């Protein structure tokens, strides 16, 4: 692998005399080697970046990350160490116009630095594969949650419990299987503390498995650019004890039965529920529905102000138009970013309910 130039003579006379590795260099190489090992082991053992994961999958990923961090740190120290040493050691004396040592290659070295990285790669690939297989392992008692993403809101349906929520609640230490689908563009479900991320596609189901191991509340972040409201497409994942999970669940069931019972009498409750289920709350603030979205106009008092927006348009007509054809009127200071297809997404009955609900916001 060494020479590309036929006249071997010129090489021999230049390769032999200078000491490519003198005593100092050998010492420095040794020191760099030791430093690399120490730094690598240190970085691997005290990985300062990824620790305290809140899921069992995350713990495995963190362990893999630590090992990789250790290896990367070692390589980093070796390369930068030799680079820095060379810069100091081999810098030209002023006025020295001579050339360096004319050697062109060293087959042994080249084999070493091809083979060692290759071995590392094999190790990492095997290790990564094992972790991958483990973190995606199904469990018999998985709690299934159907996740629906849309611009710019999350919704979580628990088929076994027949419950829908805008937050993901998970019982501690029980594996949750998320079966995810998007209504419009590609989103990505990500909870950094769980280390789990998965794109949510409009044309196919994707799955993610998470076992929460630390009680707490963690942000759900959309990680795939999904439009103007991408930054605001957030929710929360709550890991709670089995008892807390049960009481949360009963609370929801209670609210639902109350809502269902009250439906004929109270269209407002139905509207409130739709406002959340339809994802309106992701972008619009409305105190009555506990919504605090920032992307679109505030809807507190819309029942009164709607009549004043467009000359000759009644409050009801204005609200209806704003839902099904939102770009007809854009409130100053806001962008024309609301999805245009709520007319198709929502059954007409639901649009009516929403309009009545919003009209009631005096």
């Amino acid at each position, binding site marked *: *692998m060494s020479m*590309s*130039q036929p*006249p071997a003579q*010129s090489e021999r006379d*230049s390769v032999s005399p200078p000491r*490519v590795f003198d005593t100092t260099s050998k010492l420095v190489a040794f020191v760099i080697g030791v430093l690399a090992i120490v730094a690598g082991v240190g970085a691997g053992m005290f990985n300062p*970046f990824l620790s305290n994961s809140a899921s069992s999958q*995350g713990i*495995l*990923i963190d362990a893999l990350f630590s090992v*990789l961090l250790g290896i*990367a740190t070692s390589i*980093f120290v070796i*390369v930068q160490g*030799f680079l820095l040493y*060379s810069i100091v050691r*081999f*810098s*030209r004396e002023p006025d*020295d116009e001579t*050339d*360096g*040592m*004319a*050697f062109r*290659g060293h087959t042994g*070295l*080249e084999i070493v*630095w*091809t083979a060692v*990285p*290759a071995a590392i790669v094999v190790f990492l*690939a095997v290790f*990564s*594969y094992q972790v*991958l297989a483990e973190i*995606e392992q199904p469990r018999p008692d998985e709690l299934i949650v159907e996740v629906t993403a849309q611009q710019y809101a999350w919704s979580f349906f628990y088929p076994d419990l027949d419950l829908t929520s805008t937050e993901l609640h998970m019982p501690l230490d029980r594996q949750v299987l998320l079966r995810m689908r998007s209504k419009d*563009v*590609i989103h*990505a479900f990500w909870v*950094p503390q769980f*280390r789990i991320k*998965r*794109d949510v*596609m*409009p*044309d*196919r189901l994707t799955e993610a498995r998470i076992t929460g191991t630390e009680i707490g509340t963690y942000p759900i*972040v959309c*990680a*795939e*650019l999904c*439009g*103007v409201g991408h*930054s*605001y497409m957030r929710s929360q994942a709550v890991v709670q004890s089995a008892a807390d999970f049960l009481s949360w669940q009963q609370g929801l069931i209670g609210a639902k039965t109350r809502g269902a019972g009250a439906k004929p009498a109270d269209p407002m409750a139905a509207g409130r529920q739709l406002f959340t289920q339809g994802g309106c709350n992701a972008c619009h603030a409305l105190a009555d529905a506990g919504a605090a979205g920032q*992307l679109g106009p505030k809807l507190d008092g819309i029942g009164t102000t709607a009549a004043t927006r467009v000359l000759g348009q009644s409050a009801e007509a204005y609200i209806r138009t704003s839902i099904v054809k939102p770009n007809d009127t854009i409130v100053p200071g806001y*962008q024309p*970013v609301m999805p245009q297809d709520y007319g198709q997404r929502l059954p007409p009955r639901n649009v009516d309910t929403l309009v009545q609900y919003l009209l009631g916001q005096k």
Partner: protein
Amino acid sequence: MTETVSGGLIRHGGRKVSDYLVFNTDHKVIGIQYLVVSFAFFIFGGLLAEAMRSHLLTPNNPILGGEVYNEMFTIHGTVMIFLWIIPAFTGLANYVVPLMLGANDMAFPKLNALSFWLLIPGAALLLLSFFIGGAGSGWTAYAPLSLQTSNGQTLWAISLQFIGFSTIFSGLNFLVTIFNMRAPGMTLTRMPLMAWAIAATSIIQILGTPVLSGALFMLILNRVLGTNFFAASAGGDPLMWQNLFWFYSHPAVYIMVLPAFGIISEVIPVFARKPIFGYRLIAVSSMAIAIAGFLVWAHHMFTSGMDPLLRVPFMITSMVIAIPTGVKIFSWLATIWGGKLRFTTSNLFALAFISMFVIGGLSGIFLASVPIDIHVQDTYFVVAHLHYVLFGGSVMAMFAGLYYWYPKITGRLLDEGWGKVHFWMTFIGFNITFLPMHVLGLEGMPRRVSSYAPEFQPLNIVATLGSFLLATGTLPFMVNSIVSLWRGKVAGANPWRALGLEWTLPSPPPIHNFPTPPTVDSDPYGYGEPKARQRLAAPSAPGGN
């Protein structure tokens, strides 16, 4: 275009300023045209970046709305890739590769000019798409979001078609030139490594870019005619866009970094006064990267809905790419070892390239490992990684090459003092900007967001301040490169005492390059060997000082 209005030095034996403004077939003119235009876009893309970094000083900054912000990073990415790094390397290669090969021009001079002039409508359309708004789906333009965005997106796609054709034609031209037009005696193993690198780059351009073209045609037709290729709502396949897009766009990373490898392989031996270490392995690894680079694209899609089983083979191929890359790094380190290093600005940038590219390479291994990628995909970790590769790698190498060949191109040296200021501001500013982004990503900040959780603010402030330093650092270079046209030290034919054929010609070279075809009996890296010593000592080497 100010750079071409020189103090009369970039005349190439009688060029007028107006020659640089029209369809001219001289590869040297075209090279300068590419360089000037692409540098202007570097500034434009940089200003966009500064605007975004300023916006990110506070977590909920109202200055840029979500829509404008999305369009800004879309255009920032598109401009930096398609109108700065790729054409700037094309420009530099256009100027130096024929000279290095001992050729009088490219194989197809008219096609060469056409390649450049296709870039101009592409650039104009891209700017227009930004100003009418709508191209807000990132430079990756994932469908169906890229079907939902407004009209600027269509213009964006059309502009990339122009740029794509430009790339294909220039790749074709380089391949034929390198294959067919080498000086007598220049066998493949005597060819400069820059030529090897550009040949590898050209292979990717020829085989990768048409796939992007195909995908873009389908996107345009989908948007304009309603052919629902990618429209999930009508049964189309959004993942197909990702597959086609990354089939080009991952190799495109190598389009942007192989020329950098070439430049480093030229610059390091000259300033270490030593032969390049392991010539054959460096040359072969360029080709290995070019071909293997086509087999890794799906690592961008580990978290997408693609078949989970496919992730493992793609993880393996992605990691394997690290091996030839590592070989190059180690070979450069061995080239420095035992040298007589001269710390010219060019060499500083080259050494910084090695140092920074290693970081980008190592973070790449993290991303190739599927379980870790599941966590860091689409976060600031990726932003940090790609900037270490494309700025710490490609742009550092670009500057190394510009400082190295500027005297050949203009006949005058860039000022070394201001060069060092440029280097240190760039190097320090770059690291302050992008190092913290690794941590941001690991801790949970997604990319492409105009507002973020408050706990990420401190590191964002650090990154933004670093970016100000980085941006300011470009000013000395701009001033230097213009002022040096008149004031720079006269370079002479061979200011670096280098062995490449381009240094046997006067600076700048005459219009038709080599009056008599040079003959070659060795590679240009024999520093320290007797033959090279004789050659450099000869007072009147062809076109010598």
